[in-house]
């Protein structure tokens, strides 16, 4: 498979597979090995002030089964679910318009791609200014949302919206709109045509967008820290605390493992949904 010359047919001439080795080595050393250490740490316990003792027991996980922690996990799931639902609700009609009706698409698409890649921190910081009670808009309305859960929710929708829109657009952009028109010509109402034609074709985008929003939100730390004033704890807040203030790395590792576990569950569930969608699409 690594002979580059002469081979025709599927894929054309090839570059050797061993070219992947440098990147794979980097992933193994600096991604997989670190995650392995976290897994090992989650079964360890503190010894003394900073030392770690590999006891190989479930004490950390048992400790996390406390209602205090469970409340925080549930709250985090709530935040991730809200973020996913809200960005989907706001993002779908927008991506639909962009894919079907917009003109000057090169520019309009760029305007979504720019916030997708830029300054997560600074885009959260921007709301610190806007939500300040002395900012003209809110001074006029006489509301103070800064450092509330509402502020966190606004920040989440703001920062994650582009992550939802781009995969939605990628799926919707491929749709042959004459199919939708044909369905309508054959007697489907607009809603029915949407449900039977557009939605199934858009499903991969919905799945990808939901994953891109939901998974990172399960470990979100910055937005609650900046816009919530660190008053409300989420899973990410706990991890950051154990690693920067409390210095209980084994407990922090166990919390990180909970995040990885829920990420795996979500990935498997969503890939099932996507697979079913593909079957339905034929």
């Amino acid at each position: 498979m690594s002979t580059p010359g002469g081979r025709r047919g599927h894929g054309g001439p090839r570059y050797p597979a061993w070219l992947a080795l440098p990147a794979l080595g980097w992933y193994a050393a600096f991604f997989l090995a670190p995650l392995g250490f976290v897994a090992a740490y989650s079964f360890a316990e503190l010894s003394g002030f900073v030392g770690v003792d590999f006891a190989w027991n479930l004490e950390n996980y048992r400790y996390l089964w406390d209602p205090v922690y469970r409340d925080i996990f549930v709250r985090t799931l709530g935040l991730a679910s809200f973020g996913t639902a809200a960005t989907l609700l706001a993002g779908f009609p927008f991506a639909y318009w962009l894919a079907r009706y917009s003109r000057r698409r090169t520019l309009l698409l760029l305007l979504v791609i720019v916030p997708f890649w830029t300054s997560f921190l600074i885009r959260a910081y921007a709301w610190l200014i806007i939500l300040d009670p002395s900012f003209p808009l809110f001074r006029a309305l006489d509301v103070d949302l800064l450092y509330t859960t509402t502020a966190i929710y606004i920040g989440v929708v703001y920062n994650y919206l582009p992550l939802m829109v781009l995969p939605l657009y990628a799926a919707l952009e491929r749709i042959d709109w004459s199919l939708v028109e044909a369905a309508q010509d054959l007697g489907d109402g607009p809603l029915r045509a949407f449900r039977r034609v557009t939605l199934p074709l858009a499903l991969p985008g919905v799945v990808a967008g939901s994953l891109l929003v939901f998974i990172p939100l399960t470990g979100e730390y910055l937005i609650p820290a900046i816009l919530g004033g660190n008053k409300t704890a989420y899973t990410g807040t706990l991890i950051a605390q154990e690693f920067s203030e409390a210095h209980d790395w084994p407990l922090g590792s166990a919390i990180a493992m909970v995040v990885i576990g829920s990420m795996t569950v979500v990935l498997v569930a969503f890939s099932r949904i996507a697979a079913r969608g593909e079957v339905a699409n034929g």
Partner: protein
Amino acid sequence: MGRRLLAAHAVLVYAFLYAPVAVVVAYAFNGGRQTLNWEGFSTKWFSAALRDDSITSALRNSLLIAAGNAAVACLLGTLLALSLPGMWRSLRVPIDALVTMTLVTPEIVFGIAALVFFTEIGLTLGLKTILVAHVVFNASVVALVVRARFVGLGHDFEEASYDLGAGPLSTFRQVTLPRLAPAILAGGLLAFTFSFDDFYTSFFVSGAGTTTLPLYVFSSLRFGVSPIVNATAAMVLALTIGAIVLAYIVLRRSGGRAGGVFPGVR
């Protein structure tokens, strides 16, 4: 939904996406001492920021890390992208999954994992550890962008080159590399911004003495917003937005559509 309604919604979405950013930039030009008390146009906070040692040294660190990271990520990511299309499926599928994992794993988890790892193997935290950690997800970014272009171009020219007797190395140099150059450059620019903007990973693996620009902004927020931080934020925005727009133009100009700035977007 009616077409007009959809268009109106789109206008609102764009306003929502850009108004907060515009506010930061606008208030960065506020001459007053208080962030929100407008006292006339001035660029004095920009020059104040550029005279502040803690800001300039953080800026220098961020630029060094981002540039080094982009170079390594380009090398690893491009090689990976070249190797994938011809690879056995049973090898390619798990590698694809690994690449996806490096991009979707919540960054805080990766950040603490890198911290635990570097501490265990006894590496001193600093610029180098930040760079090494950033390369992990940026190699994946470059691989995705370059691969999209590589697959999209087809392999006719490479075949012709082999038929004419060129080996893999000269085929790469004379045929593949020139055609992939825009994608590699765009991937490099994205890797640069991704690293320059990174908060989570740097936060955990920077150690005590090293600060990057996002870390500086974050730590200064404990004291609330201030005009100098605002000016710093505006400069970060200008730099990263510039790099992304450039990446987008490079990819468009070189024949593709948006091809690969986001996987799947054409």
